[in-house]
């Protein structure tokens, strides 16, 4: 969750959005619009959705106007139905390829998640038997 590279997808979208506006070169990087109503603090994303960040601000010292992009919850769809190839399957990658993966072993089952897929989905909701996990990058 800490890499800078993983905002690739967002930067791509941001670049697209910026290109569509002649008045701002980095519209998506502007601080989140912040609304305060009595004791509550909300940030508003590009779809108009309001997010209550009161607790994040008051308990964790986060700054409401340092939330960025606000592309909306459907901009980067997670993978909720992961499909896997096993060794010997026709589309299993050849063993000498060097692309990056996140690898994990749970319940004695090893699985690899390529970064080239994770960067466009951010999250894979997966399960290993009775263990439910999320792979994020």
């Amino acid at each position, binding site marked *: 969750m*800490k890499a800078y590279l993983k905002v690739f997808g967002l930067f791509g979208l941001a670049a697209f959005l910026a290109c569509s506006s002649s008045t701002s070169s980095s519209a998506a990087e502007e601080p989140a619009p912040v609304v305060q109503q009595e004791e509550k603090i909300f*940030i508003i994303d590009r779809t108009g959705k309001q997010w209550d960040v009161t607790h994040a601000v008051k308990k964790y010292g986060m700054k409401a106007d340092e939330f960025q992009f606000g592309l909306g*919850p459907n901009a980067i769809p997670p993978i909720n139905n992961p499909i896997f190839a096993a060794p010997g399957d026709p589309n299993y990658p050849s063993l000498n390829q060097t692309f990056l993966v996140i690898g994990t072993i749970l319940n004695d089952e090893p699985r690899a998640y390529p970064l080239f897929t994770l960067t466009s989905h*951010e999250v894979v909701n997966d399960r290993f038997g009775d263990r439910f996990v999320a792979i994020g990058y």
Partner: protein
Amino acid sequence: MYSREIDGQILTLSASGWTYRNTFVLYDKETESLWYHLKGDDGLTCIAGKFADRKLPELNSVLTRWNTWVNSNPESKFLMNQ
């Protein structure tokens, strides 16, 4: 990689569309709680919403190259989704 089980409930995590200090802010579709990997922490913390202050623990995973991974784990499955 993180657990997505809490109090017997299974969460579906997703990007919220927000980043905070170059890190994605996640949310869960079931309760729309916000989840964030606080610096130096070993899991996702619920920073706002129903599960405020609760954690989803980090589970072991490695960032490596496919050839390295598959040579050590020849039975590994591979995510095919595009």
